[in-house]
């Protein structure tokens, strides 16, 4: 984070006033909020990103004093593992230089790298935090992956264990035979 402001030093000298204005702006851009996850890890998060979380917005509406970085905003139902993923997603999508193709590649890899348990936890966390963009991305992608596929493909893609007994599976297969469901 600190490196980002380094460039201001190499700028040619301008009038003191201009320089002061610039400082003000950079300071504003850099304002951060302290978030504390359920496993008691604190994160300093850019306000521009943290304010995209519905839960954070709501918290600040009730207790505006928390925007002073001394107090941490508690996120009771989000573990640090999920918050790291959520921040990774939002930092990438907030990055001005990210082209459309970069984002597409990033999104694909992001989804592919998650195992089913992680995906489930992330969906729950995104739901709790009310982070609309990520939540919509996840739900839409999951639906798209299921569309026009067979059962085995869906299981393998998400890494879902088949918890049916062979008898149950046979019964359901019979019940769904009309759909032409391929069942390996």
């Amino acid at each position, binding site marked *: 984070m600190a490196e980002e402001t380094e460039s201001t030093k190499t700028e040619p000298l301008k009038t003191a006033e201009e320089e002061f204005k610039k400082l003000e702006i950079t300071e504003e851009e850099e304002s951060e909020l302290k978030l504390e996850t359920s496993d008691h890890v604190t994160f300093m998060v850019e306000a521009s990103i943290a304010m995209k979380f519905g839960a954070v917005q709501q918290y600040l509406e009730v207790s505006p004093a928390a925007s002073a970085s001394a107090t941490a905003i508690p996120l009771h139902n989000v573990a640090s593992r999920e918050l790291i993923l959520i921040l990774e997603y939002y930092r990438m999508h907030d990055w001005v230089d990210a082209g459309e193709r970069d984002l597409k590649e990033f999104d694909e890899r992001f989804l592919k790298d998650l195992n089913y348990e992680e995906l489930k936890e992330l969906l729950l966390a995104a739901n709790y935090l009310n982070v609309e963009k990520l939540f919509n991305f996840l739900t839409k992608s999951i*639906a798209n992956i299921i569309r026009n596929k067979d059962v085995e493909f869906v*299981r393998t893609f998400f890494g879902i264990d088949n918890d049916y007994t062979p008898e149950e599976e046979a019964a359901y297969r019979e019940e769904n035979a009309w759909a032409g469901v391929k069942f390996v």
Partner: protein
Amino acid sequence: MENSNSTTKKDWNNFLFNEILVSIFTSLNVVDLAVASLVCKSWNRACRDPSLWHKLDLSRMSSYCLNIPNDYHAWNDKDSSTKMTQFLKTPNLKRLVLPMTGFLTMGGVNRAMKSWGGLESITISAMVPNSYIFSAIGKYCKNITEMKFSCEFEEDHADAIIEHTPNLKVLSIRTIIVSMKALRRVLTSLEHLEAVNICHSLIINKSHRGSRVVVYGIGDLRKHFPSSCLGKLIFCEGRRCLRCKRRDTTPSRRYGCHDDIWRQDEITSLAH
């Protein structure tokens, strides 16, 4: 204590996750739902959520089922009736879209309508003969207030709905060929009718032998109907309507169902 706390949290998370799964599955069609229900037990539970079974679009299914997009003949085989009755385990069904073409037997239609007594809205296609679909609806589905036609709308249809669905409130007969006499009959005889959508439709009057066809414009309708009826009509700009113009200049775009345009609707509850 700690232990019981973590169990409740786990239960709560499972409950929430089920809700999330249901919201994901709302965008799937029936075949994809069948696949999803076989993946694992928790997905199966989510697939059985009643909210996923309020609307059943069999016309979409016919294409996906055989994985041939826009195959209008997917329902033509002898198993069609059996296929449809597979959905009878969905008693909460509110809206049904019949497949575009195919053949459903009288027995199949009767059984289906009997178990879908809660239907409120239906899209009728050319596939089911008028002689028994309307009587089955009249007999079993007394709550139907919305109806859409994706085939030609003729006098037989008008007579049948006047007889069997007297409580109809909304009728959509858009982008099809509509008989002027049939239109007049429903407008004057269905007393609960609130809206009739005739956008982009061709309103015609055939002479007895069918040798002479008169086409009516919107202006002509004004002359033929009392203003109380005109107020219920939803229509496009006729000759100035871009969609009608485009269709008139493209021979392949004929009136009727062979285009996805029929899925849209100015009455949002009938669009799909």
